[in-house]
């Protein structure tokens, strides 16, 4: 008899600790937007160093959650100087013409526990596609960490054209990881 009571208690505590962590401003220097591409079957890490996040999230009302992420495409670090030069050029991100990529959420739903799922529209270059990303929300002291991973197909966005268009050297699938740390909400 004590077990279910404990479980309920633990459940209440959990909900309490989660909803207590209503999110405030993003801590940019502790947040990361990284990706893993595959070159000749070898995973290669990359990162966007500059991006801004506007989000509003209350785990008690996930449906009301909103997020917009703007990414400065020229801030990419794809692993080596030569690669950065290539990946910002015309065949890839074409940062001269398309300096920014944008994600705008359209809905968030709870998956149970501290897991959620955000759906939205991702625009890179001149292509907009629907993406869905599961994420977790974990308190970290006074702050809250949002962490998620999803996979996009670079071909859907016209990333890697010309000689790079086929996927035998650079795979179509690119894994995107986000790790956003938000401060406690003030007031």
């Amino acid at each position, binding site marked *: 008899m004590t077990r279910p009571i404990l479980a309920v208690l633990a459940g209440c505590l959990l909900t309490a600790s989660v909803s207590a962590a209503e999110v405030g401003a993003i801590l940019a220097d502790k947040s990361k937007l990284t990706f893993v591409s595959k070159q000749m079957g*070898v995973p290669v890490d990359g990162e966007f160093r500059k991006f801004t996040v506007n989000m509003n999230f209350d785990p008690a009302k996930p449906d009301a959650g909103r997020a917009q992420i703007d990414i400065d495409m020229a801030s990419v670090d794809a692993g080596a100087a030569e690669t950065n030069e290539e990946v910002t050029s015309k065949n890839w991100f074409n940062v001269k013409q398309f300096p920014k990529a944008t994600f705008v959420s359209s809905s968030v739903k709870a998956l149970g526990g501290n897991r959620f799922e955000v759906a939205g529209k991702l625009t890179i270059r001149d292509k907009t596609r629907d993406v869905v990303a599961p994420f977790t929300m974990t308190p970290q002291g006074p702050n809250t960490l949002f962490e998620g991973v999803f996979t996009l197909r670079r071909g859907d966005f016209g990333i890697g054209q010309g000689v790079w268009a086929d996927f035998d050297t650079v795979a179509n699938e690119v894994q995107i990881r986000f790790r956003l740390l938000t401060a406690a909400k003030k007031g």
Partner: protein
Amino acid sequence: MDTSPPTRYTDTAIALHWLVALGILGAFSLGLYMQDLPLSPAKLKLYSYHKWAGVTIFLLVLVRLFWRATHPAPPLPSSMPVWQRRLATSMHHLLYALLVCIPLSGWLMSSAKGFQTVWFGVLPLPDLLTKDKALGDALADVHQFLNLSMATLVTVHVTAAIRHHLHSGEAILARMLPFLRNKARP
């Protein structure tokens, strides 16, 4: 049990010698060629082939060293002056050392540059170093230096073998090239 020194290399030793020789000739030329290519899918492919070939050579060299340790080489002919025999032996040891260090430096360099080596696209080798650009660049210099040293030593090695064959009349080259053997010993 026969304890007298062998008079010839085993067929396995000869096969390994030429396999490794062919391998380094290929990996060396590819290494020189691929570097200056502009970034392209072809370049990424060639880098991978170079790394796969280098790892394969490394494994062959390990087999070769094991074979060499368990199957002594025939002694050099006593018609050769002692200093020449000593020099030849040191030369061979140096070549073995380079054959081990060159692929190792390549592997370490790749790790330090943040590009893991996945042998034939299937078997990931552990990254022995974490990503560190300065270290990666330094190791690239080491890899290059060791390669240039090897190219120099191989040139001397080949020249010496041919000279012995043509001028000194010693059947040194024929020990590694069995098809010359019959002519050398009618």
